[in-house]
């Protein structure tokens, strides 16, 4: 702190001191041309700038540029373009005259923008002292990409992105350097065009039927990936501390495309068509296997009953005694199970034209339910954009239409989105105005599937259990209808998907307007106003025609509406100054005010006499309930960042943010978040000038960031109404109030202190470039929902408890493997190894997490948070095999049911639970390649994660033969295992599997058409084919080893607490795409 106290005045003094140093000669101009050093072809879209000044311009299609109004004298002319190393040359500009410069650029290993968007401004890449990864929009927008999260996947070291499931537009669990929180959110902060956004679901949740509803889709689906110019990930705290209290999980900065070069107008049209089908389906018994199993078990039963009757003949003559005494003891399945194979028809019909009225016919089917509920799904996408403008006014406008069908039937996503970006400069380019508006409508079609738990309404659960000898539909004299068994916990999954309506719409507008004024040379003031307004609605109808609809009370309809709004006001002062060759300053100071508001309205009707109204006439329902809810909060911040460079050798960056949040109690509202980092460009030193390194930098940094993820009002006691507080006196319910939240006035931000050390290097004139980073992240005051001392209501409350450490090593390496006319091959590797450890949980010896889902699994938890162990530690009984009668055996140490260290399911003592797995990978790798060969451009992305375990909750519940006792199907491996028919499903080490994998995420082959031959007007036209998820190599037996365990059903499962639990996920697709990009 003492350091900071001195730093701030020093920065202010520096600012004031530097202001008067204005140049006073009449300006001149620079003109010239930029060419590729290898091919000698002109390069368009190269940024040419006078270093340390706002003078910058993009080259035209012929590589030419002109910079007017440049101060006379010796200036440093910098040219930089993505994919190329930057070039700096000194030019002397005559007062009132023009100088000509010829510039050549060499391809660089990494496809990186030379100017990096950092918090509240941009920085030259060389001047960056923190840990920053950038992803180029165009490089990452391959295959079917619905949102920005999917673009980062595998392309930035230390950024682990797991899509929740294969649903179109599914949300992702994003972990930057392993996340920093247990219970609070681990989502990074998203900043779009400089305005932080509140990344919360924009649509109301659905309703879970006997379980928690499916997870919300990605709120960032509003952004069209084609509009994204670049994505910058601020990973370490010295870089992200400028975002202070919201930056503990890193920051993702998204810059959208802006208007192009002056004078040139462009029209681009991109389109693609894709076909997707599930990569893998559940391995279930087919009708032949299932009926074979049932018949075999019935034979066992008959044999057993014959011998039982022989032993005790008296029992077999009196059926009541027989049932009473022997039913549970006979092995196998009773003959009545044969009745549930196939479907019994009565009388004459298509199944038996010659039958008499009382004849019965049994027909057998073979329904592959996992295929019946999935499909080859088509996606098509159209983008039109045009850019243009004059010297002073430039714009880019774009329109997007995308329609993605899900690989599961009756699910999909449709997006209509428009975007306008305009800039205008006035007052001799001293005033710059900027406007970005994105508006989108996303239409979501959902199927009802289970996130966790659930006995009734999940499509994929019923896929697993529905009897394969039965049909999807039956036709009899009453007509054709979906076949239902009539059993309460088994529903026809095709009927569920088709008959239950669950749709949502989001309209979201994201806009910001910026005015930037040069106050003096190097000093710029900027005011930004940002608005993020979304309205999401959700419509749900469980019809009378479906048994779930009947069970819910003869039809259930629900309408809900969620409105979120965020308003941001930002004021920035930026000062950039280059003093000769020696000193450079770059100082930003600012203020930000953000206000968030959310409200939800829900109305539900139960009991309809017809399905005609669906959710459009709730007042026709027998009973109705409704609810509403609103909350708001505010964030106020002051911040500054100062970057000082000495001779382009040493750079120091200091960051300070002072954040105030309404969510905390008086006295805890404000927090200080500092960061400090430095870099030394060894390659600029004499002693290394002739070494192998074309670039060599050392960077160190430290910073502190926060996590404010407590709900608003958490420090206040709040009385709320609702059913839980209502009580009938006489026969009339008396509406009551109860405490809705257990207040904790001592709550404060989670704090993460992060240390970062890195080496950046470039070899062979940067044909090979890379960095190695090591970090340690200590998070203390973890916000956890814990048991409160009783009496208290609710029984838990949020407290700042305990601490956690992440440390890790990241490596990224890029190389131009081949660069010669006609052939360029760039390869990039990202590698991350991260270790997490819970250091302390305060007074709590351990906390349970990881709800186990499925029938017979209530109150079972798969994981524990244990001091000394990482998050995602599987904890439970150790499976040892089976006894001779097919009972599962588990390790034990004490107890009367413990024999030779082994016990059956009813003798397991929690004292014998132990660590049975770790959901964290040893390391992850992403390998991306880009080969440009003549007119072909081939890219592919491989991802791998090694060493993690996944709990196959699906197998636990659905690979047990006992399902046949209820005429339910099961997974094929159970057919041959030793488990007895009546054995319950017991969570144990048996179901924790190694889940290392290698995945070919995407491969794309693009062909540049020879334009002049085809058309006069098109500037370029490219055709491509692409495949997502082409192959997956893994030993994991479930659907997919990449699982997201996000779950809002239990406060201890939110965030990171539970990892690596796989339960009946929406299948992930393999997608083939063909596309065309045209520019006119």
């Amino acid at each position, binding site marked *: 702190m003492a350091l900071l106290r001195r730093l701030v005045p020093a920065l202010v003094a520096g600012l004031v001191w530097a202001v008067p140093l204005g140049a006073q000669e009449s300006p001149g101009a620079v003109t010239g041309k930029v060419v590729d050093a290898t091919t000698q072809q002109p390069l368009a879209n190269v940024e040419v700038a006078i270093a340390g000044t706002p003078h910058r311009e993009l080259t035209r299609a012929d590589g030419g540029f002109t910079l007017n109004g440049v101060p006379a004298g010796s200036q440093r002319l910098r040219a930089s373009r993505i994919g190329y190393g930057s070039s700096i040359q000194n030019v002397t500009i005559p007062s009132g005259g023009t100088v000509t410069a010829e510039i050549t650029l060499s391809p660089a290993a990494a496809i990186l923008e030379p100017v990096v968007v950092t918090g509240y401004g941009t920085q030259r890449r060389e001047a960056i002292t923190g840990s920053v990864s950038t992803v180029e929009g165009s490089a990452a927008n391959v295959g079917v990409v619905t949102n920005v999260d999917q673009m980062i996947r595998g392309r930035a070291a230390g950024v682990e992105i797991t899509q929740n499931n294969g649903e179109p537009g599914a949300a992702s669990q994003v972990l930057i350097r392993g996340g920093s929180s247990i219970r609070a959110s681990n989502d990074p902060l998203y900043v779009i065009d400089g305005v932080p956004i509140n990344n919360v679901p924009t649509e109301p949740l659905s309703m879970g039927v006997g379980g928690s509803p499916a997870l919300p889709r990605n709120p960032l689906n509003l952004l069209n990936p084609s509009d994204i110019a670049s994505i910058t990930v601020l990973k370490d705290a010295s870089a992200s501390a400028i975002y202070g209290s919201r930056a503990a999980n890193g920051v993702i900065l998204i810059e959208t495309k802006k208007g192009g070069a002056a004078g040139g107008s462009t029209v681009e049209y991109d389109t693609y068509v894709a076909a997707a089908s599930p990569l893998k389906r559940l391995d279930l018994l087919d009708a032949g296997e299932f009926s074979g199993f049932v018949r075999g078990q019935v034979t066992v039963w008959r044999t057993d009953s014959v011998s039982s009757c022989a032993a005790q003949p008296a029992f077999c003559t009196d059926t009541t005694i027989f049932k009473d005494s022997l039913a549970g003891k006979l092995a196998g399945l009773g003959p009545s199970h044969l009745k549930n194979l196939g479907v019994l028809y009565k009388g004459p019909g298509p199944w038996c034209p010659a039958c008499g009225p009382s004849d019965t016919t049994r027909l057998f089917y073979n329904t592959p339910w996992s295929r019946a509920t999935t499909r080859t799904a088509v996606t098509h996408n159209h983008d039109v954009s045009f850019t243009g403008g004059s010297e002073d006014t430039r714009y880019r406008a774009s329109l997007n239409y995308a329609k993605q069908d899900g690989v599961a039937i009756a699910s999909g996503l449709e997006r209509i989105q428009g975007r306008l970006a305009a800039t205008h400069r006035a007052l001799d380019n001293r005033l710059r105005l900027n406007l970005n508006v994105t508006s989108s409508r996303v239409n979501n079609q959902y199927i009802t599937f289970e996130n966790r738990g659930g006995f009734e309404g999940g499509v994929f659960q019923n896929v697993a259990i529905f009897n394969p000898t039965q049909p999807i539909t039956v036709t009899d004299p009453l007509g054709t209808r979906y076949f239902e068994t009539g059993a309460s916990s088994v529903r026809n999954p095709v009927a569920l998907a088709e008959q239950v309506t669950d749709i949502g719409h989001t309209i979201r507008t994201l806009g910001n307007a910026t005015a930037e004024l040069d106050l003096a040379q190097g000093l710029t003031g900027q005011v930004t106003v940002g608005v993020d307004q979304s309205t999401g609605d959700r419509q749900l109808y469980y019809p009378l025609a479906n048994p779930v609809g009947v069970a819910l009370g003869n039809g259930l309809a629900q309408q809900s509406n969620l409105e979120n709004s965020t308003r941001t*006001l930002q004021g920035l002062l930026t000062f950039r100054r280059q003093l000769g060759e020696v000193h450079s300053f770059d100082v930003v100071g600012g203020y930000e005010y953000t206000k968030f508001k959310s409200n939800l309205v829900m109305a539900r009707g139960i009991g309809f006499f017809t399905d005609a109204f669906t959710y459009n006439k709730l007042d026709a329902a027998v009973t109705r309930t409704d609810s509403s809810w609103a909350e708001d909060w505010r964030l106020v911040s002051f911040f500054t960042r100062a970057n000082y460079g000495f001779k382009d050798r040493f750079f120091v960056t200091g960051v300070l943010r002072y954040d105030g949040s309404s969510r905390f109690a008086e006295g805890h509202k404000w927090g200080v978040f500092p960061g400090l980092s430095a870099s030394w460009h060894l390659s600029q030193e004499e002693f290394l000038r002739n070494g192998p390194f074309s670039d060599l930098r050392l960077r160190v940094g430290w910073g502190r960031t926060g996590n404010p993820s407590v709900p608003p009002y958490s420090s206040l006691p709040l009385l709320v109404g609702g059913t839980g507080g209502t009580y009938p006196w006489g026969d009339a319910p008396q509406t009551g109030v109860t405490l809705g939240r257990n207040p904790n006035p001592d709550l404060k931000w989670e704090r993460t202190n992060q240390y970062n050390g890195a080496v950046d290097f470039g070899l062979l004139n940067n044909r090979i470039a890379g960095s190695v980073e090591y970090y340690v992240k200590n998070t203390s005051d973890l916000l956890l929902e814990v048991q409160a001392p009783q009496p208290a209501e609710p029984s838990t409350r949020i407290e700042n408890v305990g601490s956690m450490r992440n440390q890790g090593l990241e490596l990224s390496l890029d190389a131009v493997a081949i660069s010669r006319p006609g052939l360029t091959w760039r390869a990039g590797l990202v590698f991350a190894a991260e270790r997490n450890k819970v250091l302390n949980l305060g007074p709590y010896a351990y906390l349970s997490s990881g709800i186990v889902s499925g029938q017979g699994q209530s109150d079972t938890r798969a994981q524990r948070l244990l001091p000394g162990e990482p998050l995602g530690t599987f904890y439970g009984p150790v499976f040892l095999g089976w006894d001779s009668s097919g009972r599962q055996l588990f390790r034990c140490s004490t107890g009367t049911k413990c024999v030779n260290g082994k016990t059956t399911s*009813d003798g397991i003592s929690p004292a014998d639970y132990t660590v049975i797995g770790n959901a964290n990978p040893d390391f992850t790798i992403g390998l991306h390649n880009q080969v440009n060969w003549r007119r072909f451009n081939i890219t592919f992305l491989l991802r791998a994660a090694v060493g993690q375990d996944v709990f196959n909750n699906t197998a636990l519940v659905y690979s047990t033969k006992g399902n046949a006792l209820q005429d339910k199907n099961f997974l094929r491996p159970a057919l041959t295992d030793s488990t007895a028919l009546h054995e319950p499903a017991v969570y144990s080490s048996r179901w924790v599997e190694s889940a290392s994998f290698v995945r070919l995420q995407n491969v794309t082959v693009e062909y540049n058409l020879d334009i002049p031959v085809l058309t006069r007007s098109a500037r370029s036209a490219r055709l491509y084919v692409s495949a997502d998820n082409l192959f997956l190599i893994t030993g994991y037996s479930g659907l997919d080893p990449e699982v997201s365990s996000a779950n809002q059903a239990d406060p201890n499962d939110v965030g990171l607490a539970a990892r690596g639990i796989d339960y009946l996920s929406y299948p992930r697709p393999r997608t083939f795409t063909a596309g065309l990009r045209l520019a006119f």
Partner: protein
Amino acid sequence: MKRSFVKASIGAAGFFTLLLVPLQGCTDLTETPRSGIEPSHFFKTEAEVLASLAGTYAQLRSTLDDYYNVSEISTDEMVVPTRGQDWYDGGTWLDLHYQTWNGTSAATGAFFNGAWNALSAGIARANVLLDALKATAVPNQAEYEGEARVLRAFYYYLLMDLFGGMPLATTSEVTRRERVTRDSLFKFIESELLAARPELPVSWNSANNGRITKGAVDAILANMYVNAGVFTKDSAGAGGINATGYNSCAGVTVSGGLDACQAAVNRADSIINSGVYQLADTFAKSFRADNASSTENIFVVKFIAADGLGLNFVMRALHYNQFNPSPWNGFATLAQTYNSFDAADQRRNIFLVGQQRNVLTGALVNDRTGNPLIFTTTIADVTQATEGEGARIYKWPADPAHIAQNNGNDYAWFRLGEIYLIKAEAELAGATGTPTPLSLVNTLRARVFNPAKPRSAVTADTVLAERLFELTGEAKRRQDLIRFGKYTDCWQYKTPCPSAARTVLMPIPHGQIDANPLMKQNPGYP
């Protein structure tokens, strides 16, 4: 140079002014909740006080979850067998029935922890109201305060019954408190009940049916007094609770210097002589959906057929195909318990055995494989039971007007039938009173046997047997077995047995001790 500096300075100043104008109002971070209200802004009117009182009553519903399950399933009245893939649930149900629990075991995490939290929440609700009443003045305040104090005392009574001494909170502050001894908690509950009693009415009009009366206070007290031999002791063993012999109320001195047994008789007489209560003409009447009009029920959890406000007992025991929505097919009765009922005793009709019907339509039902659904009395293997095994308790019949699983049957925590048996037991233990224990027991038997089948003599053990017949399913069995020193005994599906003497007090869940390290675990639990 100079001109530029001036211009720049003016520009910068102007810019900062621009920023500072909105900034003035923009550092205010006070929260104004939208969908909730802070207690400090509430409790201004009688209606607001009544809303909080209703919330305090509402927590009574939760007494029928974990507290109920512990009181039934850890005894010989109920077992929840593992039925194939159903009801294993991490071993919780069998751990509870086997009494193999400790501070971290499956049953503790599920049931004891749940009861601890749910009952404590009732206390917390009462304390929020009682705190507020100190600072407000509304009509009928004394009566509302009396009801809140009785409710708080009742939640404490259930906790005392399970765990012994508890942290004693008389304010709504959430903080760590040490456990008081069970004896001091007993005295606190007793004094609260006695202090509140004068403020309460003898009975309520029908619009307020279900609220607390003087009779309800007397019933809780009578029950506490007859259990005084247990409720005043912090552990099993010498000088403490006798885990294998009768724990008499005789010799325990309670308020007013009375012997607890005599105090129990006095409280029972106060109820019987109040003129408000009388035995219903049939046994079944006190449990039906229309039992709000029962003259026998003294202190009830009030239920109506409305979403979230009804009794769900039909769900726990009935088979999937016997009711709509589909029940859970879980809770069953032990064959030995079913068989101990006299076949002529109408009280045996609470059990369902044999071929089953849909309880709403009366139609015969099949099991899930399509065979006739037959409930057998025996369960061959509680770890691998089938869906038809085990007799079911169906004491609170389905409400024809039910909304989903919500039935309008009130649940009586105390009814006159039990008061008769408390009185009989206290008299047998040495208190004086009329009529005789034999007469009291036979009064109850008279309405359930036709032809009559009175007992010729009673002992403490016959009272225990009559309590089983009269009160099965009413969550009294655990308390009774502990008082009679039979809780650790062996019964049909309980292995291993006998269980440890420590089980007469439940272990304190480890998470509760973590949250409040001032608490010490109950004796005998590691």
